[in-house]
């Protein structure tokens, strides 16, 4: 079994790090990194909107994705589209009709799995802004290697060599009273490259497990932060 270039196991995530409330002008912000991949997210809102964006029934969500260098192109607009749809799936938009919520994402470093990183950063920034959510959304990327094996959270180099890529996001709701965790449903899924249906199912399962671990990390990170701020007060 060949080991990965950074010495990780196939189903091992890179080191996660999350820092919140970095930007004082934004209502919420977070910097999320997975190893060398790093995305900064800012959330403004719910704030008033005008014109066609105003929806009398729910909040309007807008996502801006800024690449590390250059201007946003068609590729970035597609990422914005996927992230916006994902955010719409978790934000309780009907609580804030006629308002707008803007999510601005800036890629600080891209070392693979950048869409997953951006979704995680968005999730934490939304929580930091105090936007009411259905649950905590977590995303992860899985690469299907030429040999058919899967690797979790690929690096940029691994991503380029891969046969295919799957990025999935799951909503990690609070454990129910019954205590039995139900199998999480896929909120978002994008893939590229060619692979079999079995490999896809396997990656979904890997993704599901990894996302619940990421969500657990988020909860710990959120708790520590709250304790810290209470101590200061």
């Amino acid at each position, binding site marked *: 079994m060949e080991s990965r270039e950074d010495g990780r196991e196939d189903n091992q995530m890179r080191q996660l790090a999350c820092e919140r409330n970095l930007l004082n002008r934004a209502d919420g912000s977070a910097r999320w990194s997975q190893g060398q991949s790093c995305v900064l997210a800012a959330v403004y809102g719910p704030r008033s909107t005008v014109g066609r964006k105003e929806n009398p029934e729910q909040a309007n969500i807008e996502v801006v994705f800024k690449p590390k260098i250059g201007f946003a192109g068609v590729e970035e607009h597609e990422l914005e589209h996927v992230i916006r749809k994902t955010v*719409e*799936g978790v934000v309780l938009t009907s609580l804030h009709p006629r308002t707008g919520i803007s999510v601005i994402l800036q890629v600080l470093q891209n070392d693979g799995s950048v869409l997953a990183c951006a979704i995680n950063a968005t999730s934490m920034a939304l929580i930091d802004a105090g936007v009411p959510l259905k649950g905590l959304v977590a995303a992860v990327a899985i690469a299907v290697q030429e040999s058919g094996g899967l690797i979790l959270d690929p690096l940029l180099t691994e991503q380029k060599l891969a046969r*295919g890529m799957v990025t999935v996001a799951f909503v990690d709701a609070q454990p129910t009273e019954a205590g039995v965790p139900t199998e999480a449903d*896929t909120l978002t899924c994008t*893939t590229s490259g*060619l*692979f079999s*249906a079995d490999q*896809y199912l396997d990656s979904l399962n890997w993704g599901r497990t990894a996302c619940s671990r990421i969500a657990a990390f988020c909860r710990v990170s959120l708790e520590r932060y709250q304790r810290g701020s209470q101590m200061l007060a």
Partner: protein
Amino acid sequence: MSTSHALDAEAYRKIYPAEFYKKFLDEKVRPDGRPLGRCRATSVAAGAVSKADGSALVKIGNTTMIAGVKLEIMRPTDDASDVGTVEVTVEMPPLCSASVRSGRPTEEAQSASQRISEVLTHPAVFDLTQLCIAKGQAAWVAYLDIFCLDADGNIFDAALLAAVAALSDVTLPAVTVLEDGRVTADTAAVAEAQANAKDAMQTGEENAKGTQILTSQRQLSLKCVPIGLTCGLNQGHLIADPCAEESGLLDTTITVILNESGELVSVYKPGGNVGASDAILMDCIEMSRLRYKEVSPLLEKVLGKGMSE
């Protein structure tokens, strides 16, 4: 009496679209009479634009897409000297639907452009070295423009089908180098070069004087044929090929693209109000397989090739 009843139904449909639709779904049928898993009538016609280098017209129900390929010769960049490029643009002009306004391209069109481009430029789907004319000197750039003429839902499937048909319909013209070093596909120059080559053959000269043929005429082909099916989820019901009216009521959509050997080319589920369980995703893949069997004969027929080997 019966007229007022019919009017009531129409009014109900306008005022409470979700409730109206739910009444149908409960009976496992859709307002246009289709069962939940059936797609609308689909047709593919290649060569719809006579002046384009390759083209196709696709209809899925009322949704109409016309795709055309325009070829141009470019100088390849140094880091990709032996490949050409395919530039995909999906356009939704205001004429295609009442909900589209002029100005910035719609999000749907941009998203479709990017996803089709991602599928068609993947090395396992389309070999870009086919577009090479002379390494480091000249290569084809294929501008693949897909226009929506009527947007009645399921834009992406129709656009992908049109893109695949138009690209397979392309015949690359023969190319020659002029004396001043310019690479051209001009018919007169090519004919002259062909005559020169013939002369050289007869006289047995090794280096023919005048112009030379770089590449001869050839048909473009795809390594595999990707065909997609978009399904929508509405209150747990899986609905294949949603029309425009249904699209507005869906909780989420799932698009599965397959190739002829049943491999997944793309599974795309962009968020939405509900998640999809593994069972639903598997159902989508299965429905997509059935759809593949339905659509691939249509493509084969117009392109006249055995594509589903």
